[in-house]
């Protein structure tokens, strides 16, 4: 029983991280129609930027913000210098995928070359805030959950209530039409990548906060979890991504109670394949058809 409770707790925590990542990933897909397979590597870059800042003596919150900024900057540069030019050229879906894989390769290995193969951890010690049925819940975990909730609320407000959000949704549905309506599509897309990049950086920092240790290769398989959460929720649907993250987080952690923990990734992947085969439009079926940034 204890195991199940603690697995559920950790499932919610990891779902928080996944939600941040999946929403960011979905946002990028919605505005640029590209599966940014380098997303998880960008998360890791953000996480390491925060580490570097922390080691340089900056306080935790500032370091975290630097991590977020790093994610935002890298994502923006990626779109501006790689994805957008190629999209304007007109490359096939496959070539775009190969490109994003190549980018992930470059990012991952540059980071590896710079920081080396060692394991690191943030200079924070978690303190137990309370326990549920003898499953401990730490302050760091609560912070991550709070961050995720705050970010989700922010996204909701942005998408639904602000002019920018409306512009983003319009650009996502039909860029050409949006442009002729006077919406500066390029600027909107750039902002979308900035915001999603910030979410990406935040997800990276959050992931490392709740991990006992991490290294430059931590992001390698995480991308599939992100995609799984996004697809599960119906790719292009931000709320679906949140739901998908929750389902996936809980599923992987709970199955780890009975199966060997090293199967976690396999479970996530099997869920992904299952969804792709059975219901490619995701669990929020009404909002299928890829591109629209539904809210």
């Amino acid at each position, binding site marked *: 029983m204890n195991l199940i409770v603690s697995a559920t707790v950790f499932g919610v925590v990891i779902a928080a991280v996944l939600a941040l990542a999946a929403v960011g990933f979905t946002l990028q897909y919605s505005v640029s129609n590209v*599966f940014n*397979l380098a997303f998880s590597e960008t998360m890791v870059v953000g996480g390491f930027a925060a580490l570097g800042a922390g080691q340089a003596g900056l306080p935790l919150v500032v370091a975290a913000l630097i991590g977020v900024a790093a994610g935002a900057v890298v994502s923006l540069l990626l779109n501006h210098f*790689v994805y957008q*030019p*190629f999209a304007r*050229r007109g*490359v096939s*879906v*496959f*070539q775009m*995928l*190969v*490109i994003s*894989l*190549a*980018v*992930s*390769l*470059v990012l*991952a*290995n*540059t980071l*590896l*070359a710079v920081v*080396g*193969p*060692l394991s690191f951890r943030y200079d924070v010690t978690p303190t137990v805030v309370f326990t549920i049925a003898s499953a401990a819940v730490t302050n760091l975990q609560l912070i991550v959950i709070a961050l995720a909730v705050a970010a989700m609320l922010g996204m909701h407000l942005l998408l639904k209530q602000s002019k920018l959000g409306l512009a983003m949704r319009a650009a996502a549905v039909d860029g050409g039409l949006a442009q002729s309506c006077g919406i500066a599509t390029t600027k909107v897309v750039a902002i979308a990548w900035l915001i999603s990049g910030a979410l990406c950086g935040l997800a990276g920092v959050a992931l490392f906060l709740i991990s006992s240790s991490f290294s430059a290769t931590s992001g390698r*398989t995480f991308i*599939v979890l992100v*995609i*799984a959460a996004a*697809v599960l929720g119906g790719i292009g649907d931000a709320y679906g991504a949140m739901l998908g993250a929750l389902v996936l987080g809980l599923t992987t952690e709970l199955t780890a109670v009975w199966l*060997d923990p*090293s*199967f976690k*990734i*396999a479970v996530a*992947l*099997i869920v*992904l*394949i299952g969804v*792709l*085969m059975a219901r*490619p439009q995701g669990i929020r079926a009404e909002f299928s058809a*890829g591109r629209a940034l539904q809210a």
Partner: protein
Amino acid sequence: MSADLSFYLVTLLVYATVAVIGCWGLDVQYSDTGLLNLSYIVSVAVGGYVVALLSLGPPEDETGTVVQEYFWGAELPFPLPFVGAVLAGMLISLPIGLVALRRLRSDYQAVAMLSVALIASALVVAVPGLLGGGHGLYLIPAPLKEELGLKSAEYSWFYAGFAILLTVLAAWVVVRISRSPLWRVLRAVRENPEAADAIGVNVTAVRLAAFAVGNGLGALSGAVLASFIGTYAPADWSYQETLILMGAVIVGGAGNRFGVMMGALLLPVGLAEATRYLPQFGAPGTVDALQFVVVGLVIIGFLWLRPQGVFPERKRTFDVDGRPVPFWGKQGATP
């Protein structure tokens, strides 16, 4: 020739054949039929493991103690382990194909394939009793070494010759496809599956078949590698490797068998050799990591500057009598 130089050359040759055969398999899948198989490395892994399983024999020795951890083994005479490896590679096409080759959108297809590669890797590492886990399999017997009774140096040249023979065989397979009416069918499936369907082509069957042939070649390359090195472990087949092969195909010239061969010699082999002579700087593994960075940048660079590769695919034309114009002939000559 000194023993070191001899060994170095043999190693280079064998690695080259492994890269070339592997890249040709990918070429059939990607350039001919339009399948982006991000799980290609799994077929290579299957080849490596199966050739080991079919030559090692059972995991326990005569006294019943477990020598290595794997789920089953047989000690088959040469060349059966290789035949088995190729067949196994073709067979895994069925489950993977059923999962990923149905009417999914291309990007979902690719993600599904990538997931397969990652699942395979995760499973093998997580279940040591299956295929030796993270350590992999070792002491893989070299084919015919005992029977021929050659010394190490001589044997290694024999093996190089064997690997080259297999490359010639692979060349025959892919060039045959390239010069046959079948190639048009594959290309049609790539260009416009709907129109191909309307013309009488069973698109799913064609895709599965091309997938299987490509995977068979991948398995062959894995088998050649594993039998040569004598060990095989997950570190030898990370999903990043698929991207290196992909890079070789793109750089060399997708759809051009000669180009792909050159790409294979340049990228996987050439890069590894070039970095061999660089002094190891930074933390261990930095130089290897930088290799991948170079590969990634090269891929992006080529896709931007010269997506058709160094040796572009040639247009197929026919002379006045309806005979195909060979690749050295003048192209596009109007009859």
